[in-house]
């Protein structure tokens, strides 16, 4: 944060990318730690969101519209993934009557 509050209307690229990667890292940490399956899915959404931020940041750096189009594509991908993920969570709830990751211990060794 070396040039804090400059008078120009531009922001260092590092900050945006940093923000994106930070959100991504937060999502990853949540993904690795949280026990509730649905919250896990939220963390996945968070990671994707972080990646989108980085994408948008790089669309501004060299200045091309492609990344923004990809971000739009990512919405569809995230939506589809969320759908299937939640369906699986519901199935696990119905079969194992539990929504925590520890319930998934049968296949091992």
């Amino acid at each position, binding site marked *: 944060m070396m040039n804090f509050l400059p008078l120009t*209307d531009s922001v260092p690229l590092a900050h945006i990318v940093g923000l994106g990667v930070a959100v991504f890292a937060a999502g990853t940490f949540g993904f690795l730690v949280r026990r509730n399956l649905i919250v896990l899915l939220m963390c996945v959404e968070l990671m994707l969101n972080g990646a989108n931020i980085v994408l948008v940041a790089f669309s501004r750096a060299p200045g091309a519209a492609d990344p*923004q189009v990809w971000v739009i594509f990512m*919405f569809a991908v995230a939506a589809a993934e969320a759908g299937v993920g939640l369906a699986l969570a519901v199935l696990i709830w119905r079969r194992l009557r539990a929504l925590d990751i520890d319930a998934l211990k049968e296949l091992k060794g």
Partner: protein
Amino acid sequence: MKPLLLNAAFYLISGAVLAGAAGVVLLRRPLYCALSLLFTLLATSGLYILLGAELAGYLQIIVYAGAVMALFILAIHMTGQDAPLKVPPLPRLLLMAAGAGAAGLFALLMLASARFFIAFVKLAPEPWSVAEQAGLIFGRYAPQFELLSLLVLAGIAGTVVTAKKKL
């Protein structure tokens, strides 16, 4: 004056996004996490608009915030699992490992791209026109777009077959 305002807005929104993310990770009840995620998504769409990706911003609000969040709320409702889980958290070692992993990833990526971050991004520039972006979607990325339709179709079929009560 306008630039100062823009800068402040950018950092404000960044803060909001980070707070939302932290909320999703740390809050105990799934419903609160869902709301916190919603907040993050809205903040991010603001960020997009600020950075000139208006189409992405607006779509995010409609598609992402709207539909996906509805799905989450529905899922939480269906499993009736609003109360925080009574399952013990991960052993300390794994917690530390997860933290180290996430932080490590952040550090490595930032380290990797540290060298070329001298560039600056102009806030609130004039965005690419929707027509131009549409031209891209239906021009060069048409095959990818078609694939997306297939993806969504597959997603629907997959969700239905998994979540159906009985076949």
